[in-house]
């Protein structure tokens, strides 16, 4: 009571301070307080993603190259979009991106699953293996690209290991792997597998760790063979982990860029150009800003289906995982 009166007196004595206090109380109210961080973050998103994106749409409708002043740009309608859609290079780059990520993700899933299964059977050495297998994930992708570029060079260790084999056929062992289209593609896939199998391995390892022991033991007691237990009991229980690994890795693999720059610059020819590299080259090397803008809008349109599908699957799988754990 005394406090209330003293508050009232203070408020009466200095109206400005009272207003400040009222404002502070308004900010701390149930309705407003949680909105403060929300508004700040949303404003940041609008400023750095939404506005640039809207501007990109506008730029994509202009005829303009970055090496000329912006005032010289003229309205071009949908010309840029037509140009991108008619360009074989764009579609080939997109197809190649899907091809790379398809092969790489499949390999990562199979190897990661196998490794997780083997490691989960270990008792004493499990921790050691897990620590080692985790390391590639932490290495900066560009350093991975560099490492592999070092291994593939004509006088690199890969050729040395292959030398006895190649010598039998009388081939000079100093092969320039990255100058051969197919070998260069596999070089990029291998670098990706090297780095990201660690993630699928970890996802599957936690999946294996969460398997209910009793259920498996029960199956064994009832006379199921190891093979049957694996196919009929363990694999269905691991399905959420598999789905999550597929989605997360595919979304990331479609962004493939760093190893391409480090290993091949999209070459030889355009045989390792991913769609990310294609866009980067259009804008940075050829200065075709409005063309690049149109291509990135088209790309986002294509990927947005995948993104929505991915998020939908993640939400439903997460529910399944949580429901199962309760």
């Amino acid at each position: 009571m005394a406090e209330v009166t003293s508050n009232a007196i203070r408020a009466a004595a200095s109206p400005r301070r009272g207003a400040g206090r009222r404002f502070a109380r308004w900010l701390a109210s149930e309705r407003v307080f949680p909105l403060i961080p929300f508004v700040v973050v949303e404003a940041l998103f609008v400023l750095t993603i939404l506005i640039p994106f809207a501007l990109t749409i506008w730029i994509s409708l202009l005829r303009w190259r970055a090496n000329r002043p912006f005032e010289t740009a003229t309205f071009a309608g949908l010309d840029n979009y037509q140009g991108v859609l008619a360009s074989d290079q764009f579609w080939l780059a997109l197809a190649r991106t899907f091809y790379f990520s398809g092969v790489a993700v499949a390999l990562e899933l199979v190897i990661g699953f196998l490794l997780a299964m083997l490691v989960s059977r270990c008792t004493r050495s499990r921790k050691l293996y897990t620590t080692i297998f985790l390391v590639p994930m932490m290495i900066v992708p560009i350093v991975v690209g560099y490492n592999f570029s070092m291994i593939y060079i004509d006088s690199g260790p890969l050729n040395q290991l292959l030398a006895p084999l190649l010598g039998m056929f009388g081939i000079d062992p100093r092969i320039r792997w990255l100058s051969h289209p197919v070998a260069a593609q596999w070089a990029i896939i291998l670098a990706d597998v090297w780095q990201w199998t660690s993630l699928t391995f970890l996802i599957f390892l936690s999946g294996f760790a969460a398997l209910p022991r009793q259920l498996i033991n029960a199956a064994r007691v009832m006379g199921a063979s190891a093979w049957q237990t694996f196919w009929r009991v363990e694999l269905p229980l691991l399905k959420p982990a598999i789905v999550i690994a597929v989605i997360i890795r595919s979304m990331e693999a479609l962004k493939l860029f760093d190893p391409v720059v480090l290993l091949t610059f999209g070459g030889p020819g355009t045989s390792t150009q991913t769609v990310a590299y294609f866009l980067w080259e259009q804008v940075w090397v050829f200065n075709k800003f409005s063309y690049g803008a149109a291509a990135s809008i088209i790309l986002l349109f294509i990927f947005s289906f995948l993104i929505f599908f991915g998020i939908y699957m993640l939400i439903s799988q997460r529910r399944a995982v949580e429901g199962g754990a309760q």
Partner: protein
Amino acid sequence: MTTAADVAGEAARSRRRRRERLGKIGRHAILLAWTAFIAFPIFWMVSTSFKDAGEWVAWPPHWLPHEPTLHNYAQIFAFGALDPTLSRQATEQAFTIWKGLGDALLVCTAASLLGLLLGTFLAYAISRFNVGGKYFRHTILMIRMIPPIVVAISILIYYAIIIPYATSALFGVRISLFDTYVGLILIYTVTTLPFVIWMMLTFIDEVPYTLEHAARLMGAGRLQVLRRVVLPLVASGMVVTFLFVFILNWAEFLLALTLTHPEVTTLTVLLNKFQSAAEGRLYGPQAAIGTVVTVPVVIMGLLIQKHLVKGFSFGTIRK
């Protein structure tokens, strides 16, 4: 007395034991093979970083440097003018790592701290007040799933053309965010915010609400509750999140390559510069930089090992 059944049982048991031992050997053989596969590129980088120029591309390649040298490290860590015997190539200034190291540390620390601050606050609001609706947690993932190249081109146009154009038209001053620390920090903060929010959500969700309620009843203000009750309880989570986001920013390449050119140079961009060096590839210094870039993040990563999968999979995996 041993019956036939006993003998058969003994045989079956020994057969099973032998099969188990074989399985164990096979298992370790596969796991060790994968270990070797993982270790080899790292080994090769570290080994190359101690090789002198003549050994970089020797045939047959030298697995271990025949004459180990700290030359490459001396080159990248050199201050000021280089000893002419050290620099065999023309682009001396591109050798030193200091600029890249300083810029990377500045940009990554600032962006990670800013992201941590905003993300933690928002995660708290989401966890306690359900701000943004039920699916806000998931829609925020979309930011992460958009291919960065799509964002990069729009941001490049925005930073390098639109902002200078608009500011010179409106205020008469040409302000460009292209190739500035502020520009890069801002975009790093935004791209890693989803991770901060997701990781902090899992930590904050675990703090019992009753604690805060009690503090509120005892007369603590909202900010006081946050500072005195919630933050101390999630402090370790904040450290983990900071390290995780720092690793992500440290490894980022595409945005840095697109949004900066001569001025701001992060380590990843610096490493790439050697690749396109006109005098041919400088394998040694590159390997040295690679080693310097790798060591701190691997240590950080091993520190937060348990939480890594949470971050990379957006908490969809329960550990």
